[in-house]
Every structure is written in structure tokens, then in C-alpha cells.
């Protein structure tokens, strides 16, 4: 994953309830507008954030989202880290398959979110919690 230079401090939002998932969407939207992402890119990033924040709540047992504006010298972007200390994902390939769910969902959150962003990195393992980093670059 290309790191890029942070522009300003990360803004953190705890994810402990339904309402916090709404707050994550609102925070990401505000930052994406300020970074001048196109309307379609804003929409894709907020949608991906909504999916990942819900997973953090439902499967990770709660956690945090950190939103930072970054710059790679050519483009500006938004980086979001979703972190939880939950059970972790045992079979990552399976979890990233369209339609795979251990809950009552459609199994589209993880795989769909990956398609909606430019960079997607996940660190997880049984009993190790889950840390997902995504970046969307401005065009």
C-alpha cells in the first residue's frame, strides 16, 4: 500500500453502536468533500466506510475508525483505518468472496468495499482482531 504523507491529524470515531456507524459515514463524507473528491468517489468511499464500520460493530464487537487526509506528491486522498479487537477473520480468502457471510447479511460488505476503494489492506487472524486500511485517491 502506498503510504503518502499525512495532511493533518487523523480524526477518530468510536464504533460502539448503530448511531456510531451513521457518525462514521458523516465524518468520512465531510473529509471527502473537504479533500475535493468527485461526487461519485465520495459516494463510493462513504458506502465502503459504512460497510466496514458495520462489520467492525457486528463481527468485531466494536472498535474505531480513523480518517486522515493524505498526499502522495501527485494526488490527495483519504485513508481510513478500521480497527477492532474482536475474534479476527480465520479464512480471509473466504471472507473476501462475494456472498460469503457468517451473519445474516448478503456477504457483500467486505468484497464490495474492496472494489469501491483504490487501496485495501487487511491485517487479521484468529484471535488477533481485525485492522483494515483503505485509501481513495482524488482523480
Amino acid at each position, binding site marked *: 500500500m502506498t503510504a503518502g504523507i499525512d495532511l493533518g491529524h487523523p480524526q477518530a470515531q468510536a464504533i460502539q453502536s*448503530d*448511531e456510531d*456507524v*451513521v457518525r462514521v*459515514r*458523516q465524518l468520512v*463524507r465531510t473529509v471527502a468533500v473537504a479533500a475535493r473528491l468527485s*461526487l*461519485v468517489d*465520495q*459516494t*463510493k468511499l*462513504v*458506502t465502503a466506510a*459504512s*460497510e466496514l464500520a*458495520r462489520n467492525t460493530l457486528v463481527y468485531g464487537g466494536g472498535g474505531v475508525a480513523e480518517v486522515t487526509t493524505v498526499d502522495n506528491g501527485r494526488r490527495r486522498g483519504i485513508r481510513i483505518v478500521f480497527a477492532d479487537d474482536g475474534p479476527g477473520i480465520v479464512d480471509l480468502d473466504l471472507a473476501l468472496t*462475494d456472498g460469503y457471510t457468517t451473519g445474516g*447479511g*448478503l456477504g*457483500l*460488505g467486505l*468484497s*464490495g*468495499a474492496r*472494489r*469501491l476503494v483504490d487501496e485495501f489492506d487487511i491485517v487479521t487472524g484468529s484471535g488477533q482482531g481485525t485492522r483494515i486500511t483503505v485509501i481513495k485517491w482524488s482523480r
Partner: protein
Amino acid sequence: MERVPVLKIGDILLVSIQVDMSDQTAVQLQEDLAERIVATGCHGVIIDITALDIVDSFVGRMLSTIASISRVLDAETVVVGMRPAVAITLVELGLSLNGIRTALNVERGMELIAAAQADDYDYSAEDEPDDETTATR
């Protein structure tokens, strides 16, 4: 928890979602609508999502479920006002919005429901053909 209002306009229930719904609010709306369809005997439901700047898998699934529930309760659901950026994102997310009818705006949605009802009427007329129709066969 916020609650999304359901309005009755003639034979149609109109839901205009104006807030960024929490998952709980979305589930509540699903239940409220089912109850209102039965209580009012309405045959059409219009869900206006003009104000929604995203539809994720949860809300997408809620829309599909409302469409299925209303069909069982003899009502047609039309989702109107989806923004282009939302449509593009939904496709990339992989959500197919199974069984959902869509229209550009509330007016078109009402036309669609009226047309669906007219179709129903024709079918029921065909079930019991009158003497004239039988005679020409």
C-alpha cells in the same frame, strides 16, 4: 431512535427518507410499512430516496425486503429518486436490488403503480370472460 414517517396519499403510501438512517431505523421502517399496508389496504408504496447520498448493503436489503413484503400483502413498491452516483456505487458494490421496481420521481412512480393496477384489473377480467368475449373465440 429516529423514525421515518409514512404518509398516506389516496391509495398510496409515500415514504420520503430524509435522514441518514441507522440500521435500527431502517428495520423499524420495514415493520411500520408492513403494518400500514395492512391497516390502510393501500395497493402501492412509493419510497423516495432522493435525499439519500448513499445506499449500502443494509439499506439495499431493506428495500428488497419491503418490496417482497408488500407483494405478499398485495401492494406494489416503487423506489424513486435514486441519484446517479448511488446507482453507480450500488452496481460496483454488487447489490442487485432484487425485485425492486424503480422510477425517476414520485410522479412516474405513481404512474407505474396505476399501470400495475390496471394490468391486475385486466387479468381478473380475463379470468371470468363475459359472454361477448367467449362468443368471439
